[in-house]
């Protein structure tokens, strides 16, 4: 894949509010942990959960949080891009999400007003709403591929640009914490009551999070003509199904390995050229073992020289937004030459034997960086970025 630049980024995460990406990045690479014991969003219960929640302005209703953070992240990306309002009229938008504005529907059901469903709860609603609010006039698409939604949104946007079907597409993901998801993941026994320890022998599950992130992807000549900055080039993207199980990953990581292999083959790079992988790294027993196997299967011996870290150890698992947030982290690692750590890592697991950047960030030039996602239904996606020449 050639000629696709990432020219702007924007995000909202559970780390304390930041005005700039650089401030967010400083906190993340400093190992700041956003995961705390907190009550569920709407249900009145004594039980608290380890979650990474975004603090919003006082007075904002929980059921408005989804669109609020989506719009905030999108505005940040647009401001970063410098795109004019005229340019936005021909810009596409792809929004990935698993549950959409589920809190709006929860509220209706809790209040006993479940008969008439509001359009806000529809998964295709947010992209239309955001497009209208911010006057984005190109092709609008929604993606829902479980935890790979954000990565697939970015990848599909890159393909549209590489094929010449669009000059600029903004792509990303958004999801919020919900009582709905807490009940479901609790039932699956996927939530930790300890701490999120990706790739650690004592890992005991994930913490749910929330967030929104968007990347502005742009045709290279279009970006050059308007003097846009470049965070990185999209060099490859692939989606692959495990075709194995509705909730569990394939134990050998076959779908993810194939996705990584396909993304690398599109780039013209060799596995040894990939300096950093932002892993899906949920800290569940099966995901982390599967992901390690997939990386080793795809990269071979080069896997051991590649830095692999999980930013979910600090941000929690933001569902459909996680892929976009982590793609952004991969880009920032290239831009700043700092690789964020996997925090809470104490006990090496023989099944997870790669370099997971334990507890402390590493400063090193990052030539190419990849972001991986895997999700329910055997969804797998990999997106590969190359360093902008100017860096």
């Amino acid at each position, binding site marked *: 894949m050639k000629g696709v630049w990432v020219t702007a980024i924007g995000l909202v995460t559970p780390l304390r509010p930041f005005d700039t990406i650089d401030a967010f990045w400083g906190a993340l690479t400093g190992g700041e942990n956003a995961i705390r014991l907190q009550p569920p969003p709407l249900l009145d219960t004594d039980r608290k959960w380890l979650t990474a929640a975004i603090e919003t302005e006082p007075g904002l209703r929980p059921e408005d949080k989804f669109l609020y953070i989506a719009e905030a992240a999108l505005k940040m990306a647009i401001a970063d891009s410098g795109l004019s309002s005229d340019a936005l009229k021909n810009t596409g938008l792809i929004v990935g999400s698993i549950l959409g504005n589920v809190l709006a529907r*929860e509220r209706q059901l809790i209040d006993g007003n479940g008969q008439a469903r509001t359009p806000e709860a529809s998964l295709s609603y947010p992209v239309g709403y955001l497009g209208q609010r911010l006057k984005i006039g190109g092709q609008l698409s929604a993606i829902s591929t479980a935890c790979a939604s954000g990565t697939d949104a970015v990848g599909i946007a890159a393909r549209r640009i590489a094929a010449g079907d669009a000059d600029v597409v903004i792509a990303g993901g958004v999801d919020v914490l919900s009582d709905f998801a807490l009940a479901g993941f609790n039932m699956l026994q996927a939530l930790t009551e300890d701490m999120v320890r990706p790739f650690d022998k004592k890992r005991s599950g994930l913490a749910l999070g929330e967030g929104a992130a968007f990347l502005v992807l742009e045709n290279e000549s279009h970006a050059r003509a308007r003097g846009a900055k470049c965070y990185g080039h999209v060099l490859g993207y692939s989606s692959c199904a495990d075709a194995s199980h509705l909730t569990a990953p394939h134990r050998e990581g076959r779908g993810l390995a194939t996705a990584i292999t396909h993304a690398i083959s599109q780039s013209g790079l060799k596995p040894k050229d990939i300096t950093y992988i932002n892993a899906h790294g949920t800290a569940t027993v099966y995901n982390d073992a599967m992901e390690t196997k997939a990386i080793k299967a795809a990269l071979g011996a080069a896997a051991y020289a590649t830095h692999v870290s999980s930013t979910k150890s600090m941000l929690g698992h933001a569902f459909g937004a996680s892929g976009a947030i982590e793609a952004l982290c991969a880009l920032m690692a290239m831009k700043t030459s700092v690789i964020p750590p996997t925090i809470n890592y104490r006990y090496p697991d023989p099944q997870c034997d790669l370099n997971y950047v334990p507890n402390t960030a590493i400063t090193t030039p990052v030539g190419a960086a990849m972001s991986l996602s895997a999700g329910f239904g055997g969804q797998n996606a990999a997106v590969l970025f190359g360093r902008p020449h100017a860096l």
Partner: protein
Amino acid sequence: MPSETMEIVVTGIGYSSSFDHKMVEETLNSIRQRTGKTRFIHDIEKSAVTAVSLALNDAGITFPLLESGRDDTGLYMGIDDAVEDIKDDFFRGVLGDGILGASPLMFPFTSPNAFSAQITIVFDMRGECILMPVNNSFEDVIEYAVACIRNGYTKTAVSGGVRCKGNNIYEAEFFVLENAHAAKDRGAKAYCRRVY
């Protein structure tokens, strides 16, 4: 960008409606060898698997048995708000009985890609798998499937979707799309063609 003209053809069509319960059950029965390990929970997945089965059969595509799947066939699927009924039922269980009311059978199907995943599992399709929530026709998702063939990301695409027709009736329609040369080489018929 594609460097030469490419002709893409529709070689298979499948349609099913959960209203035609008998047809759905007969079709699923005919592929029992594939669905043996699959426990269908919802009419949406039954309709979707049925329509894909009919489309693949119509296209003359026979998949290898499990454990020898292929990654050159992608699934590109649209879905309307059909999944929202399942989400409502799941959350009503939580409201009624607390967290113990969370149904393990229902939870996976609150994520709409469960239906595309079920298709990939039944037919052992290990290629791309993309689900787009849409509230109109499935034109966008079919266009994307065509683009993926055109740009070499998949050899064959199964594309279409599922929608709710009201009163718990679901209909699914899928098409098999492929490069005209590949279709001709394997002697497949073509319903229609589009040149890029």
